[in-house]
């Protein structure tokens, strides 16, 4: 699934002209990615032992449970907000297209594992504690991914350009819903990959 590039990814040059893309296609691509994240959580994470889930990474980094808890803290902020903003939103534009904003595209590229190689420090309010109820964290992660799928479905007929959502780290910046979806899902991908690395390389910590 990963070979499908996200439609907004642009060649890295400083004078990026945002391309209009087909909204339906964008949502389908995103849905496929959320579906694969869900499958990973259901197939792998929920079946691991408590010890495996809470084991710190070999480099001292986050455990699997911490990776998912970190994602949950973003879901806690964004999902209810998106839900609220979908109600009474404008219908899809006539040609059914979506265009990323410059800033939205910048954030997405930074977060996307294929284009943003840089590591970041987690923001305040998104730093997971060490001691977690691992299974409750996974159950909540799965619930949130199911909700995200539902939101993507609900957004099909709405205009992803006109709905704007304030971002979690500073409410002064608002991004288009189409960019917020892409950002959240790129961020999910990043930390699910991180959790998978912890899972595959569990010993010698």
């Amino acid at each position, binding site marked *: 699934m990963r070979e499908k590039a996200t439609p907004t990814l642009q060649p890295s040059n400083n004078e990026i002209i945002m391309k209009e893309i087909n909204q339906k296609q964008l949502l389908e691509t995103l849905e496929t990615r959320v*579906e694969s994240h*869900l499958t990973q959580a*259901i197939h792998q994470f929920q079946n691991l032992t408590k010890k495996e889930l809470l084991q710190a990474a070999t480099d001292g980094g986050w455990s699997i449970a911490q990776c998912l808890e970190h994602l949950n803290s973003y879901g806690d902020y964004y999902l209810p907000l998106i839900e609220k903003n979908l109600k009474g939103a404008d219908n899809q534009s006539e040609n059914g297209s979506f265009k990323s904003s410059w800033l939205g595209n910048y954030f997405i590229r930074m977060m996307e594992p294929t284009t943003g190689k840089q590591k970041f420090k987690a923001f305040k309010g998104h730093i997971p504690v060490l001691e977690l109820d691992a*299974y*409750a964290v996974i159950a909540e992660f799965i619930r949130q991914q*199911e909700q995200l799928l539902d939101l993507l479905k609900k957004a099909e007929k709405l205009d992803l350009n006109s709905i704007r959502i304030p971002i979690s780290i500073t409410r002064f910046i608002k991004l288009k819903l189409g960019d917020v979806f892409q950002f959240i899902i790129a961020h999910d991908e990043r930390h699910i990959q991180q959790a998978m690395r912890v899972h595959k390389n569990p010993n010698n910590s």
Partner: protein
Amino acid sequence: MLTTLQLLKQTTQAIYPLSDEDWEAFSGIWKPLSARRKEILTVAGEREKYLYFVIEGVQRVYYFDDQNRESTLVFTYAPSFGGVIDALMLQQPSRYYYETLTPSLFLRASVFDLQLLIETRPAIATLMRQGVTVALSGVLERLVELQTFSTEERYKRLLQRSPHLLQLVPHKYLANYLGMDATNFSKFINKVKI
């Protein structure tokens, strides 16, 4: 690879073998349907318009009421029949929901086409009676488990019967099906080895 109709035929023959002519008529009423994850196919309060045959994916029949009480009654997965069978056969509003838990593929037959065949072809009436009776048998067996077995025994039974569900379905649905809370369920993941 079996075609979907061949899979249906194999499953049907195991319940009650049909003559070529009856199979011809029976196989003619099915149409393919695909559904995404968490799509509700049958809504409580409405009639069950279809009999489903599962080709791919996992689904559940569940009860949900105005006090937010939820009960997962049955899982369906390939190759088996699905839908709210009592509502279908009695032609009464369904008391339950039927929803997909994973992306799913089905064949489905409309109740009108099915009823017509049941009324005109005795072998198909027998096939349906056999099928419903086997399903009843499964429900009675499950009642015994729910009323008699400990939660750990129920968990082990599920592992024996449908181990693949643990990797396909979020555990909250499995815990609910077994009549235990999610915390209890996760204890068994650590304790009971597959």
